[in-house]
C-alpha cells in the first residue's frame, strides 16, 4: 500500500458514519469591520503603510515620473529596474530621456539565470505596477508576470510601486470577490505591506532583512 492510500484510508476510517460540517462562512465578519468611505481609503492605506516604514506619496498621472527622478536623485541611486514593455515603463523612459536623467534604466528581459549576479548585487532600485491596494491592512497586491517578474519587487534594495487610487479596495475579501480570484490564480500572487523586516533579535525591528530596505508607494490620485 502506498503512503497516500494509507493516509487517506486512515482518515476515511476515522470519519466513517460522520457527515461533513456545513459551510458556515460568514462574510460579514471579514468585511463589515473593514469598510471605508471612498475618500478615506487612501488615508487609511497611507497611515498603515507609514506605520511600517513605507513612504507614500500622492501624485498624478502626469507628474509621477518627475517624482521618481527626484526620489532616486535624493538617494544618489544610479540605476532603476523597470519594464519598458508596460505603459508606465514607457512613460518613465520618455521622461528620463527628455530630461536627460543620469539614472540608468534597466529591463528584466531575460531569465534570472542569465543575470543573477547583476540582479543581486548591482541593481539599486526597481519600479513596478500593482494590481491594486487594500485599505484595511495597508497592502499592495502584485501579480507578477513576464513583464514584471517575481524577483523584481524583492531583490533590489529600493522598491517603488505605482498604485491607482481607483484600485484601492476596502479589504482583501472584497478584492478577491470583485476580481474573481477563485476562478484561477497566476503562478504567484503577492500581498506586500511594507519593506522587508525582522524582529528576530531581541524583538528590535530592523528593516531590509532579505528584501527591499525601502518601499515607496506612489498613489495616482487621478487614475
Amino acid at each position: 500500500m502506498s503512503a497516500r492510500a494509507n493516509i487517506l484510508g486512515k482518515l476515511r476510517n476515522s470519519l466513517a458514519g460522520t457527515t461533513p460540517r456545513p459551510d458556515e462562512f460568514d462574510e460579514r465578519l471579514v468585511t463589515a469591520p473593514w469598510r471605508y468611505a471612498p475618500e478615506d481609503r487612501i488615508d487609511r492605506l497611507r497611515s498603515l503603510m507609514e506605520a511600517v516604514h513605507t513612504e507614500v506619496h500622492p501624485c498624478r498621472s502626469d507628474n509621477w515620473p518627475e517624482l521618481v527622478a527626484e526620489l532616486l536623485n535624493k538617494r544618489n541611486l544610479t540605476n532603476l529596474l523597470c519594464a519598458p514593455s508596460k505603459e508606465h515603463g514607457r512613460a518613465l523612459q520618455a521622461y528620463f530621456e527628455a530630461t536627460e536623467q543620469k539614472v540608468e534604466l534597466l529591463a528584466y528581459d531575460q531569465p534570472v539565470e542569465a543575470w543573477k549576479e547583476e540582479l543581486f548585487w548591482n541593481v539599486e532600485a526597481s519600479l513596478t505596477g500593482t494590481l491594486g491596494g487594500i485599505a484595511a491592512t495597508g497592502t499592495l497586491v502584485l501579480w507578477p508576470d513576464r513583464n514584471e517578474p517575481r524577483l523584481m519587487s524583492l531583490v533590489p534594495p529600493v522598491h517603488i510601486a505605482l498604485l491607482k487610487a481607483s484600485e484601492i479596495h476596502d479589504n482583501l475579501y472584497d478584492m478577491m470577490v470583485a476580481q474573481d480570484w477563485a476562478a484561477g490564480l497566476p503562478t504567484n500572487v503577492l500581498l506586500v505591506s511594507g519593506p522587508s523586516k525582522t524582529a528576530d533579535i531581541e524583538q528590535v525591528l530592523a528593516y531590509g532583512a532579505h528584501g527591499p530596505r525601502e518601499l515607496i508607494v506612489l498613489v495616482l490620485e487621478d487614475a
Partner: protein
Amino acid sequence: MSQRIPVTELPSDFRGRAEGALADGQLRNNFRVAMDSLMSKRANAFPDADEREGLRELGNRIKAGALSRLPDLLEQLEQKLTENGVKVHWAETIEEANTLVHDIIEARKGNQVVKGKSMVSEEMEMNDYLAERGIECLESDMGEYIVQLDNEKPSHIIMPAIHKNARQVSKLFHDKLGEPETEDVNQLIQIGRRTLRQKFMEADVGVSGVNFAIAETGTLLLVENEGNGRMSTTVPPVHIAVTGIEKVVPNLRDVVPLVSLLTRSALGQPITTYVNLISGPRKPDELDGPEEVHLVLLDNGRSGAFADAQMRQTLNCIRCGACMNHCPVYTRVGGHTYGEVYPGPIGKIITPHMAGLDNVPDHPSASSLCGACGEVCPVKIPIPELLQRLRQENVKAPEQPQQVKGGGAKFSRRERWIWRGWQMLNTRPVLYRSFLWAATRFRALSPKKAGPWTENHSAPVPARRSLHDLAAQHLDQNGGRPS
C-alpha cells in the same frame, strides 16, 4: 564540507531542564521581556472584542469544517496542484518524507539547500538528515539562521532565537563569521543579509513550509516578514514545500480570516509584510520562479490524533504561537525545556501523537491549567481540556485500551491504591471522622517527607482541631445558628 551538527546537550528530562532554565537569570529575562511585548501587541491588534470573538469562531468553523472532510480536500488539493504543474508526494513518517526530499535533490544533483522557516522540516530533522548525506541545508530566516549557527534548536515557533540577546548574537557572528562585534541590531541583520544573499543565489533547491494549502485553487500560501520565504521559493530552480496533512482549507476566501487571525495573534500585526501565494512552477513565458515545485504532505502521527474526535481538535492549530506567548510556564522555563520541536501549550497536546506520550510524560502536567492558552487560541482549541484528557491517558492502567500513542506511561499501582484508600476514607462517614480525630490528635507523628512536595515546601501538618470540630463548638456557643 557538511557534517552532522551536534545540538547543544541538555538534561534528558523536563524537570532537569526546567530547573536549569529557572536558575538562568538571562534566559528568564529574555523570555519575560519578549512574551510581555508579544502579549501587549496581540491585545492591541484586537481592539474590538466582538470582532475578535466573531473571527475566532469563524476560524474554528473553517478548520473544523475542513477536518470534517479532510480526505476529500486532500484529494482535491492534489488534483488542483497537479493540474497547475506541482508534484504532490505523501509521507506517513518523517523517514519517508526525508527520503522523498533527498530523492528530489539527488535527481537535480543538488548539494546546497536554502530553507525558509518550516516547523515541519524541524519535525523531520531535515537539516541533519541532508547533512549526513553531504547536502548543506541552510536556514535563511534570521532567527533560524542564528540558532543553526550556534548548533541550537529554535526555542519559539515564531521567534526561534528569542532566548538570545544582541550581545550573544554579536559574539556568535564574531566567533563563527569573523565579523567585528557590534550590539547594533541593524548591523547584525545586515551581516545576515549579506551572507544569506550569496546563499540564495547559489542554492540548488529551496525548501519552505506552508501556512495554508488551498484546495479550490491548488495554492500554497506562506506568510513572512523578512522576504527569505520569497527568496527560497523563487530563486532556486527547485522548490520543495513540506507540510502536515492538516493545513488544507477548502476555499481561497477561507484564508482571509485565517491569515488575519494568524498574524494578529502571532505578532500583533494586521498582516505580515509578505503573503506569498504560489500556484505552480515557472511557466514557459516567465522569467523567474522555480522550474519544479513539489509538495510533501506529511502525516507523522496526525492521522492518529485525527482518529480521536476530541484530540482531532489539535489539528485546528495554525501555528501562531499565541498560546506559548501567554503561558506562565513557557515564559519561565523557555522553549528548550520542552525538549521537542513544538514547545509550550500547543506542543504539549500535539507532541504525544508524534513522539508518543511515554516520551513526554511530564508535559501534560507542566501546566497550571490557568486557561490562558485556550482563551487566546485563534481557532479555539480547548487546550486546557485536552491537557486534562492527556493527564488521564497518562495514568491509564495497562489493561485498559490506550487511545493515545504511548499512553499509560505514568500509571502506578501504588498510586492507584492510595487513591482508592483516599476515596474510601472520604465516602464513609465513620472512617472519615475517626481519621480526622486521629490526624488531629497525633499530628506530631505526621510524616516529615512527602515526596517531591517537601523538596521545596515545608511538610503539611494537620491542625490541632479540625474545621468540623471548630464549627461544632461555635454552633454550641452561639445557640445553634451561625450569627
